[in-house]
């Protein structure tokens, strides 16, 4: 009886060892396969990796991906402000000065039908007063976004897109973004504007389709 039990245990142990080896080899295979695929795909897309430090995206180190909002798809529905897992959304408004028309009647800054083109609160479009206007020379003002106040609602972006140059756009501020595995805003976005991109491309998309290296 004892002898039989002994062989039984050995058989079970042997089976376990064999299966464990198979599992380890399989797991190793999956890992090697994934890493080599990353390398292969990264060399493929290297021509489009704008300004990418080679170490970040191609081969040597795997691409670190971050969420990106595609401003060309963005419809300024306002869900960015409310859908983020953070109470104060990681999506903020960005401003490309090189595209700004420095309009006297700035549709990103002024409430439609504003009584006067002054910085009085009732004239401002931004619900949190996050757009700062500084005088340059007549008739030009520079506008800048106060990131601490911006909630990413996209009201100014909408105004600028409809009537201006589209130099204001929403983007994810990666110093705030937690880089969730499944972005809560991405699942809520009606325009399917969110996707994961390599680290180097995180800020390259602009509202009018141009890009900045």
């Amino acid at each position, binding site marked *: 009886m004892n002898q039989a039990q002994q062989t039984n245990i050995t058989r079970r142990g042997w089976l376990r060892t064999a299966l464990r080896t198979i599992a380890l080899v399989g*797991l190793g295979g999956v*890992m090697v396969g994934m890493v080599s695929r990353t390398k292969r795909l990264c060399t493929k897309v290297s021509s489009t990796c704008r300004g990418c430090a080679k170490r970040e995206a191609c081969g040597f*180190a795997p691409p*670190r991906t971050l969420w990106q909002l595609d401003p060309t798809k963005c419809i300024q529905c306002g869900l960015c402000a409310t859908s983020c897992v953070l109470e104060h959304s990681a999506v903020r408004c960005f401003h490309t000065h090189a595209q700004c028309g420095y309009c006297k009647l700035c549709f990103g800054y002024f409430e*439609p039908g504003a009584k006067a083109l002054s910085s009085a609160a009732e004239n401002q479009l931004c619900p949190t007063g996050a757009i700062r206007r500084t005088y340059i*020379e007549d008739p030009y003002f520079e506008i800048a976004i106060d990131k601490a106040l911006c909630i990413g609602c996209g009201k100014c972006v909408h105004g600028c897109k409809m009537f201006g140059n589209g130099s204001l756009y929403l983007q994810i501020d990666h110093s705030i973004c937690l880089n969730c595995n*499944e972005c809560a805003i991405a699942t809520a976005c009606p325009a399917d504007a969110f996707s994961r991109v390599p680290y180097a491309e995180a800020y390259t998309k602009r*509202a009018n389709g141009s890009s900045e290296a």
Partner: protein
Amino acid sequence: MRIRLISLSIMTLGLVLVAPTFVSAAERFPTPDFETGYTLPSTPQPAPRAAMWEVIDTVTLLAALVLGAIFALKLRSRRAITILSLFTIAYFGFWKKGCICPVGSWQNVFQAMTDPTTTVPTSVLFVFALPLIFALFFGRIFCGAVCPLGAIQDIVILKPIRLPQWLKHALSLLPYVYLGIAALLVYTGTAFLVCRYDPFVGIYRMNGPFWIIIFGAALLLIGIFVARPYCRFLCPYGVLLSWASALSWRKVTTTPTECIQCQLCEDACPFDAIEFPTQATEAHHHGLKRLAGILLLLPILLGFGFWTGPHLSNLLSKMDHRIQLMAQLELENSIPAIEMNDQSAAFRASGTSLASLQQEVTELQQRFKTGGHILGAFFGLVIACKLAALARVRTRTDYEPSRTNCLACGRCFAYCPKEHEQRKVGSSRKQVVSYSGFSHITHGVGRASPYSGSACIATDSPRAPGIPGSTSYNAKILLPKTPQENDE
């Protein structure tokens, strides 16, 4: 509102007159030539968390797993495991804010395995594989103290009750259901379900959707009585870990030397993971007959699952945003009175053709159908395996932690009389031991009074006669000595 609209339309009209080139937004107003030498400021690009942190996180995970294995298998110290759990809560929970954790990382790997265009960062690969590799060697070390979801539930276990066996076995099928459904939704690119419904991430971030924090708090409340409800009855990664753990090289053992059938460990385990001695009470051929019956049932279950699976996956496909969009567009096209929603408005504005979306949705539905067949068959297989596992009668002589269900928490160590004997070899210092459910041993009640609180008993039990090598161990000799006796 009307005034605003009117003024807006007047402004628009004015703009159209002012800017004849209304087509391309970028061309409307050129950057003015400033006379005062104003230079255009550049757009800030706030840097993300440094890439080095991913390496640090992975190395920390590895270090925590190594420590966990040492604590559970070598040191055999519940206290050390608790301290590691607290570290896990602090680091992987509150500091790292829950993402990315191994519990969700399998989805990334599975996505990359099914979709050849996606990749997985190496750090995520390691986060996925390290706990599994450790499970293959040492059992579910990850669950014991390294999982942030497990650790937070572990510290709230105050009054664990033992669930009825039928309920326990029924609920233990849920992780397979969750795993299967989550895998299907990853396969179709619909969602990362496990991340979306991660119950404790909201607590760790002290932020998040209200209902998810309520869900987490409810699980913690249940967890006071039903130990680790998420780990045992929901966690899909736990399924993978239990498979790996079933093949483990070493495993957590209650007793450092040999089992004396005192049953204390079984009462110590809040997860009902200690397997008790059983004896085959029936003839061998009876068991074989039952197993043959289940094997005959297997093709029926598989077939039934395969046949019904697509019905389930068809329901799940309603979660997909592309299928929702298609349904909305069809509705709008057939009934003109239906208003556009944001999704359909954005789709119409994007200029993508309906035909291309239709094609994408058709392919997607095919994927859901194929996945549904596999999912259903998987469920059938799981049920058949569960029945086979329940029907199997194994002769076991000792109390031992289950290979698959033991979460390596180390609670049972201090309950094993042999452990104290072992420790006494090293030092003869007085030990303070916490026993629970101790009384029933002396009263011979058996397994009737588990979890009846804990009593702190100072023991310095002198070597009891007949302990070494004894199989019929009289637990009475473990009764606490009076202080006078201790002082001897």
